[in-house]
């Protein structure tokens, strides 16, 4: 990576982290809780987006989210906090490799259905193995940062920067073109020397691990987690909704999307109240999918490009007049 690009990215990470750090330092309890939720959603959405760049649309990321939480919780007593988290996240990667290998040949919709069924079966697995996983009574993961929300926010912000860095690596020159080629035309990718299978499984493994990181953060918030907290449809759909709202194939998109979705949720809750707000919230997401498939980031980029274009055309007109 050249120095300019490195500097650009460091500036970007600082800009992403800054608002979260400000909220943490201000210690406003409501906003700290919101910011923690946003950061966890953003990490999970980044994980989802990395996989989707290879054309694999998952509706089962709650599985990795939950496994990250459960894995880190169950392995920390064995390995200590640092290695315990690492082992929990590696477990997610290993399971992702297996799932990736099994679902490799499935066409788009079938792949999505397979990931959804997988997340449901993991929840069942937890319920039927109470001795190992605590079953329906749940588990008590070690609490992050001694249970101080502002410190938890700082820690999770650091995790978000890690996730953003991983996302950027897979948007770099080595992976972005190859991933998009795999998504668009795998035969063309293979005919260009790309080991298609290996890269699809690599994307799955990385995506699973980043989702596991999000789950480990989430499980460490209160020190108590039951299966319904993590293995729910909500965590399956959320990364997809967040990424579509913010913009696919970018690092900024899932982060902006997480902020926008949370804001939308709060506003809808304020005006509609009860559980009715979920209908409004769902409707807005559907509107976005139909009306703005490029997401907020893609839309903003389009605006910038359109504004530059007339300038370029003016140049050519000038050139023509001059000649």
């Amino acid at each position, binding site marked *: 990576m050249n120095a300019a690009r490195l500097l650009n990215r460091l500036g970007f990470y600082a800009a992403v982290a800054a608002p979260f750090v400000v909220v943490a330092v201000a210690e406003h309890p409501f906003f700290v809780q919101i910011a923690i939720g946003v950061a966890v959603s953003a990490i999970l959405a980044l994980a989802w987006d990395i996989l989707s760049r290879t054309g694999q649309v998952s509706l089962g990321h709650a599985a990795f989210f939950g496994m990250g939480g459960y894995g880190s919780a169950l392995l920390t007593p064995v390995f200590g906090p640092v290695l315990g988290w690492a082992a929990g996240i590696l477990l997610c990667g290993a399971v992702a490799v297996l799932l990736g290998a099994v679902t490799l040949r499935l066409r788009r919709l079938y792949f999505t259905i397979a990931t959804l069924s997988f997340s449901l079966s993991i929840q069942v697995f937890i319920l039927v193995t109470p001795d190992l996983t605590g079953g329906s009574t749940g588990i008590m993961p070690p609490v992050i940062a001694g249970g101080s929300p502002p410190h938890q926010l700082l820690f999770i912000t650091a995790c978000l920067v890690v996730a953003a860095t991983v996302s950027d690596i897979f948007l770099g020159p080595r992976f972005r*073109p*190859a991933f998009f080629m795999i998504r*668009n035309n795998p035969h063309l*990718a293979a005919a*260009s*020397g790309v080991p298609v299978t290996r890269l699809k499984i690599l994307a799955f493994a990385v995506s699973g691990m980043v989702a596991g990181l999000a789950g480990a953060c989430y499980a460490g918030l209160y020190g108590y987690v039951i299966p319904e907290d993590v293995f729910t449809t909500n965590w399956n759909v959320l990364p997809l909704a967040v990424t579509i709202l913010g913009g696919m194939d970018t690092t900024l998109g899932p982060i902006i999307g997480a902020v926008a979705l949370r804001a939308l949720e709060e506003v809808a809750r304020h005006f509609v109240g009860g559980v009715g707000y979920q209908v409004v919230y769902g409707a807005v997401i559907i509107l976005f999918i139909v009306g703005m498939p490029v997401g907020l980031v893609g839309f903003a980029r389009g605006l910038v490009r359109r504004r530059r274009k007339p300038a370029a055309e003016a140049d050519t007109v000038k050139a023509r007049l001059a000649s």
Partner: protein
Amino acid sequence: MSGAVMDEIVMDGLRIDGCTVAFGGLRAIDNVTLDIPGGTITALIGPNGSGKSTFVNMVSGQIPPVAGRVVLKGQPITGLRPDRIVHRGLARTYQVPKVPKELTIQEVISVPLLYARSDRPLPSGVRSAADLAHYCGLRPAVTTRCGQLSVSDLRRLEIARALACRPEVLLLDESMAGLSLEDTDQVIGLVREIHVLGVTVVVIEHVMRIIARLCQHAIVLNQGRLLAEGAPQRVLTDPDVREAYLGKGFTL
């Protein structure tokens, strides 16, 4: 020519030995045996639907043959994965280029430059994707997205992408179809240059004028079978070949 000499010539080319590709009941390639001599520009011709593109798909590993062997430079490559076959030194273009719209020229060419891992050299003076785009006569800026390219530029991009695999054998599937006379002449010049680099080139073409000018060897497929093979002049005047094309409006 004695058998030993023939084998030596074929060692650095491509040998197809009793190959069959079937789609259900249709044998798109039907027990074909032929040699593409190394160091030649070979024409692969035949009426529409005769199996030319299927032949390319078979050789490049996209649709492996159900029977027979494909041998590249004396090494069997039958059943290898397409990316492995690229690593062995065989590249192909697609008749209908379908590249991701959001990628730029530079990004598309960079994929084989990164992944086709080869120590074979690029054309002299060519070091980057941009050089290669220029070498293949792509005029738009390398930062242009593929969604904005004309058909003729997409064809050139396909050639550039295949060249970036640094092949020893290159199969071009109708790279000149639908191009203007001027563009066709440029691509012919490009194919000649690639050939001079030491690449064995197989061109699929419908226009006989081009074949006669460009190729040292010709192969004719008809309904998946090998109809004729040999020097272009002889093959193009072969009564069987003429008959296969009759009624299709082709002039020889």
